[in-house]
């Protein structure tokens, strides 16, 4: 949700077609990450960790970091306290 919010927040200020293409790509990536997360959680109920790959864990970490940096950036530039 944080990632979706961050993506939406950034997309709101965009105007050109190239930027919209970037947003579409981001939405696709977000959906892929969410799908991977879903299959990982589902597999935990079946005592299997196969879909919870290193790729998946790294992707989640990287998605969280970009969300965090966007939130920090927004708060800092708005002069809000962290």
């Amino acid at each position, binding site marked *: 949700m944080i990632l979706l919010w961050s*993506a939406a927040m*950034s997309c709101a200020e*965009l105007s050109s077609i190239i*930027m919209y293409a*970037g*947003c579409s*790509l*981001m939405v*696709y*990536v977000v959906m*892929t*990450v969410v799908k*991977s997360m879903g299959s990982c959680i589902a597999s935990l109920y079946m005592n299997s960790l196969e879909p919870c*790959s*290193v*790729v998946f864990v*790294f*992707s989640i*970490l*990287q*998605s969280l*970091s*970009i969300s*965090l*940096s*966007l939130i*920090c*950036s927004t708060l*800092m*530039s708005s002069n809000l306290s962290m």
Partner: protein
Amino acid sequence: MIGPSPYLYINMGARYQPCMHNMDGVQNAKTLPVTWPCPDTTSSDEADNQCTLSQLCGFGGVPDVHFDLADGEPLPNKPAPNQWWRFIVPIFLHGGIIHIAFNLLLQLTLGRDVEKLIGSIRFFVVYMAAGIFGFVLGGNFAATGIASTGASGSLFGILAITLLDLLYNWSTRPSPGKELAFILVDIVIAFVLGLLPGLDNFSHIGGFLMGLVLGVCVLRSPSAVSRRTSTDFTGRSKYDADAGVRGFVKQPLVFFQNRRGVWWAWWLLRGAALLGALIGFVLLLRNFYEWRTGCSWCKHLSCLPIKTGNSDWCSIGNLQFTTNK
């Protein structure tokens, strides 16, 4: 890239040389005080850029600078900023939405296939080693003021593994030519994009080189190399059931029996590749922290010799200090 400013990323752990070791013009500055852009700055106005290096770097700050050095005195090594984790953390940071979108797209498609091919532990090792090596190479030869982030180096390592796997299994692939063309186009596009000013192409180059070297070590040997001299009437090796690490642990001696000369040569090459990777790491880290040997032509691996107005693409990203009067 559509994302936060580089100064915020420096504060979050991007590879940024002034936070990692002493630098000429910073630690031995003759004009005081040396001020830096603040992590929350949104302008280039001087009034908004009055932070100390410690405030910019964050993570508890860095040691104070040496203001008492005499003219001509060499730059000391200690005390020095030593935020070494800036070689590791940037793998998980990205410059913006577009940057992470392209990287995740490659990671979730190609990366997943490679992880299935070589296993999670080997994938983790190659991913981290390629990423770190890319940042270490960039630390040695890239522009001094670039805040470098991204998993591109790691992904280039993964791309190198894909290339090696294709070459190993060329004869069994349905259309190897197309696959090779696809991989080469990927590599060329990424390297050319890395030549744009302010981008760190050394991460790409370093990650790819480390991926090739470690790929030789971690990928299963080509079947033409691993065939044994002794086979049964079906043409299969009687040792095939015990192949791999488990077989080696169960029967270490059998692992070496009936091997051909090319197999021994191949394993020698794999050992040399692993040793080469380790030596490469050690030499580059020593150069980064101690020797500081530069290379005059290396910058052209990361920029094109283009001049626009008063600015030269190859000087963009270098630290430049101005004196207030």
